[in-house]
């Protein structure tokens, strides 16, 4: 084991100059991201994200009464995320039944988003977040969290902060940000991270691969930097929908806006759109 890692590090030093990523990005460059909020008229809040070739829809229903009732908590609300991949989202076709992987991602995603909410405000209720992966291209759990956070804000649910998420990893001896499908599968390691910029906390952290302690720590830092960039894109997406309501001149004001404005403005807005 130690031999192979040594080989990889030396290789990294020599090849650093001419090394380029599969899709020509810089090591610390994100894939193009497009987020749109309010894409599902029936949902209380929704968002569509394209992150590279990932195409993901997130819809929020609630806070609403919990069904089945026995799962509700008398002192607080429950956040329930469901991550689900469409059968045609990957190659070859996958079964639409939820896999063990889907269930695990749903769990860690719930953990990643919950710290941003005030669930103590909604006893006996549930906030449902449904994620449908229309097309997968590596890093779906991160993209899903980004979409879910925007959808929750779109639903007018008060939040401590938006949750931003991004992966970093090691490919061909280089530490890189926001792994694509190929880099995810063939790379040495992958670390998805979710981050709340305002309170400076990491709420999703997973890792798979082989990396030294130092590299792992660097990767987490790199991913956090990526999350901060995505945070701005998420805010832009919300401003696009709600900006016209109050005119977002100052950034700081705009930050607060999606948290408060939607509750009253949203129904009127959606009617207009249709």
């Amino acid at each position: 084991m130690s031999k192979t890692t040594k080989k990889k590090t030396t290789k990294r030093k020599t090849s650093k100059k001419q090394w380029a990523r599969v899709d020509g990005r810089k090591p610390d460059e994100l894939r193009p991201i497009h987020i749109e909020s309010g894409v599902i008229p029936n949902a209380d809040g929704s968002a569509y994200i394209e992150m590279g070739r990932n195409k993901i829809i997130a819809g929020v229903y609630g806070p609403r009464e919990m069904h089945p009732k026995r799962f509700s908590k008398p002192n607080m609300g429950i956040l329930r995320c469901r991550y689900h991949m469409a059968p045609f989202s990957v190659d070859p076709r996958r079964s639409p039944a939820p896999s063990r992987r889907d269930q695990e991602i749903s769990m860690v995603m719930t953990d990643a988003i919950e710290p941003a909410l005030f669930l103590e405000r909604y006893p006996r209720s549930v906030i449902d977040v449904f994620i449908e992966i229309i097309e997968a291209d590596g890093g779906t759990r991160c993209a899903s969290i980004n979409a879910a956070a925007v959808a929750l804000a779109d639903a007018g649910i008060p939040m401590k902060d938006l949750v931003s998420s991004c992966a970093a990893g090691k490919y061909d001896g280089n530490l890189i940000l926001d792994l694509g499908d190929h880099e995810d599968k063939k790379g040495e390691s992958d670390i998805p991270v979710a981050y709340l910029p305002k309170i400076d906390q990491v709420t999703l952290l997973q890792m798979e691969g082989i990396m030294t302690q130092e590299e792992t720590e660097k990767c987490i830092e790199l991913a956090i930097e990526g999350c901060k960039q995505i945070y701005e894109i998420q805010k832009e997406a919300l401003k696009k929908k709600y900006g016209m309501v109050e005119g977002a001149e100052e950034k700081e004001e705009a930050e607060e806006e999606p948290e408060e404005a939607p509750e009253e403005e949203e129904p009127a807005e959606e009617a207009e759109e249709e």
Partner: protein
Amino acid sequence: MSNNIVSRLKRKKITDVIATGKRMDGRELLQYRDWEIKTNFLAKSAGSAEVKLGKTHVVVGVKVGIGHPFEDTPDAGVMMVNAEYTPVAHPTWEPGPPPEDAIELARVVDRGLRAAEIIDMDKLGLVSGEKVQMIFVDLYVLNYDGNLIDACSAGALAALNTAEAQKFKVSKKGEIEKTDKTEKLKLRAHPLSVTVCKMGDSLIVDPTYDEEEVKDGRITITVDENGNLNAIQKRGPIGFTLDEIKKCINIASEKAAEIRAVILAGE
């Protein structure tokens, strides 16, 4: 007894004691309970291990068989890790499909082994695209008193480490024949998980059931013998700061070495 709620009084006591740097059972914050490990005690499985960590009791069985490879890796063997929450292990556990935590347990242990490339899967192919060797690792929980991930990860490593797999012969027609010979599984790495729990401002390892109920969140980190990290899994509805994460990684590296010494000493 039959519910999984820790009373408020007990909850407060546990957090108060931990805030003073001690534990309810007298341990230090970063001290494991005593490990008791027995390997190769089952005749019908290729490898087995029984792990007792305090009152937590798990049995890990390794079976080797023949199966179909995955489409994208026609020559590579398949390893599967499954966790079973048996109803004898805890009053709140019931027979039926595996609960979420059992799925996570199996997947986190699996990820640690797989990411460390513990077994060279390419050597387990028999007939390309048709027959490969399968390695099943079953984690069987018999009594639950916290920290299942670490106990199962240690058990899985101990069981794989002593496993003797049956050798197979491929005839000219491409048929698989069993032979009487067995061969030790060659492990390329020895990864172990260490779970660090956050409780208030304190970090502790090896929580008991009560401590697990009270904890805010946890980070499980799998480390191999070269100090490389193989897997991380954060759980719980809280956030960790970067400093806390770095602290957890340091704790894990240190503790994994300690546990490895205990487990590999038993051979």
